[in-house]
């Protein structure tokens, strides 16, 4: 029996003493990772353009949703404070997605279309999903955007806050057991840190040194309101109590987010256990921040960026147009799916005692 790395002690700082390789599974050897914490600190121009487009798409899609909601066609359109697209977009960008079920796992809380697109959900799918009742990517059941695509590595924001920390921790346990060099990133709002689910999920994942990154999206637009939820200056203050590495970044600074999450992911990937990244939102617009910087650094001209933005808007418009014109598929044959056997496909609101069949 190989001793389980999960039981290895660590330094009292709460930060891992060393990179402990995944051990004890006796299965496939994992892809070796020689991460250098500073390697990815500077983002290339193409990356910056991608990020800009992704934020622009997220914003364009969100404003379409607001219009749909006003028209009574959608419920559950994003109603969170503005200027928070950066987190989801930055996190998605920092990861390694794959369409064949071998990539990093991404469990966002903010449904930014540009982040989801990177994780395999097309813009058409995004709108279909919101316009549940149509033939969306996830059947007709609609899921109030609780979209799951395990092949793509995308996990729905399940509504009871905190639960996904438990689940993603377990997915990451699976990576360890199979010796896969994957990580899972779970995002949660700051309020979710109060939940028992968040705590229990983290306690478990930390004890098992799961390759997980926990992102706390801290709303600091209204400091008084934020203080009502927690007395802490920063959620990184919670990291020590769980023995996690941690970092805190500005939610308006896309590069900062990408670099921090990438480094956290690499630390998790190489065996340093769970990492916590706080993303602080202060009401600053990440798109404008990025625009200013890209122009100043001569990564792109104002005109080029305006073109990217226009393209994002027209892509959203076209996708929505396609989706709204698509015909409804037949209705109720899609209801089953509660059990793997998909038994009980009949409606059975009331049973006719004349036939035992009906029971």
């Amino acid at each position, binding site marked *: 029996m190989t001793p389980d790395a999960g039981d290895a002690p660590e330094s009292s700082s709460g930060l891992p003493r060393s990179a402990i390789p995944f051990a004890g599974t006796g299965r496939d050897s994992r892809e070796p990772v020689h991460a250098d914490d500073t390697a990815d600190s500077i983002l290339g121009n193409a990356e910056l353009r991608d990020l800009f487009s992704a934020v622009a798409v997220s914003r364009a899609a969100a404003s379409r949703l607001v219009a749909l909601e006003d028209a009574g066609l959608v*419920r*559950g359109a994003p109603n969170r404070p503005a200027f928070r697209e950066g987190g989801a977009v930055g996190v998605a960008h920092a990861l390694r997605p794959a369409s064949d079920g071998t990539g990093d796992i991404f469990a966002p809380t903010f449904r930014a279309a540009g982040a989801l697109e990177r994780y395999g959900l097309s813009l058409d799918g995004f709108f279909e999903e919101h316009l*549940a*009742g149509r033939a969306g990517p996830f059947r*007709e*059941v*609609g*899921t*109030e955007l*609780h979209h799951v695509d395990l092949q793509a590595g995308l996990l729905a924001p*399940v*509504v*009871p*806050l905190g639960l996904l920390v438990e689940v993603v921790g377990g997915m990451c346990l699976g990576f360890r057991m199979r010796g896969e060099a994957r990580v899972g990133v779970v995002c949660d709002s700051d*309020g*979710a840190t*109060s*939940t*028992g*689910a968040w705590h229990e999920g983290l306690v478990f994942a930390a004890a098992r040194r799961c390759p997980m990154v926990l992102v706390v999206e801290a709303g600091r637009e209204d400091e008084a*309101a934020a203080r*009502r*939820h*927690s007395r802490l200056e920063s959620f990184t203050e919670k990291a020590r109590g769980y023995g996690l590495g941690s970092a805190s970044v500005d939610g308006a600074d896309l590069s900062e987010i990408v670099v921090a999450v990438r480094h956290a992911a690499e630390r998790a990937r190489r065996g340093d256990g769970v990492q916590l990244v706080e993303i602080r939102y202060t009401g600053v617009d990440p798109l404008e921040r990025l625009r200013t910087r890209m122009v100043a650094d001569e990564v792109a001209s104002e005109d080029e960026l305006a073109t990217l933005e226009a393209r994002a808007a027209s892509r959203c418009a076209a996708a929505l147009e396609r989706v709204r014109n698509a015909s409804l598929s037949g*209705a*109720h044959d*899609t*209801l089953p799916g*509660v059990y793997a056997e998909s038994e*009980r496909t009949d*409606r*059975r*609101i*009331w*049973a*006719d*005692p004349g036939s035992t069949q009906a029971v």
Partner: protein
Amino acid sequence: MTDQGVPEHLLKTRNQEPVTLLEAISEALFEEMSADDDVFLLGEDIGVYGGAFKVTRGFLDHFGASRVIDTPIAEGGFTGAAAGAAHMGLRPVVEIQFMDFISPAYDVITNYIATSRYRGAGPLPLVIRGPVGGGNRGGPFHSQNVEMAFFHTPGLKIVYPSTSYDAKGLLKAAIRDDNPVLFEEHKGLYRAPALREVLPDEDYVVPLGVARTVREGTDLTLVTYGAMVHKSTEAAEILERDDGASVEIIDLRTLLPMDDEAVVESVKKTGRLLIVHEDTRTGGIAGEIAMRVSETAFEWLDAPMMRVTAIDAPVPYSGSLEDYFLPQTEDIVEAGRYLVAY
């Protein structure tokens, strides 16, 4: 209670204007807090924001932050804390933002709160209230009915009103009760125009554990509660009009303890029982009702006891599917017709 300083929107009954079910609940809370300093509120966003459905709008300013407590997102934590405060003689009323989120408090409710008196800790006056129910395209996590998660636990009471009058009177009774009470408020009824009514301008309560006969009838007993009271009434009218059938409707109002006598007396009169609940089928409350009627009125039954319910699935988000999932008036008519003709 004087009207001094009472927010305008909480004076409707005082002014003999009609109130919605939501307003009736606000008034009940406001009046109980005014009459008894020990009553206080806990919940997410109930203070500054006035509650997700605005039930406690204006309360923070009137009663102050120590009696209208904005909590962290920790349903177990603040429900357990409410129990502790109740030990100290206070009478907390907890709001669960959507009752779907009562799950994190399941442990403390079933293991601590429900067993507290039995373990010798004396009375535990505590109300846990919040919105339930589907039909609002809320999807699987904003539409649940939660009665059957707790119905099996000895030591709890469960209330589920269907009218504005009952909502106010039952909530006041629940707050004055010395037992922990779960209070379910159907969000589809919150602002339903048809439920607006002028309430008595007096301090009335509706006692827990007593059902209400919504309409009398001789051919079929229809036992139901909550939003289904109204669909059942529609169905009864259709059956009367189209089939000449006389349907008696019993609104349970309190699910636990249940008013067996009202149900059994009616079944003894009609010989036929149809139970209608919005909650899903298997393990629904219909079973308990059928069992009790079988135990006590079997000889009076002229037809099988039957039920109309939601189907066994999470609540779908899609509108067409949610309609399909939920019991509809037409389903009740069909089942009622079957039984009357049996």
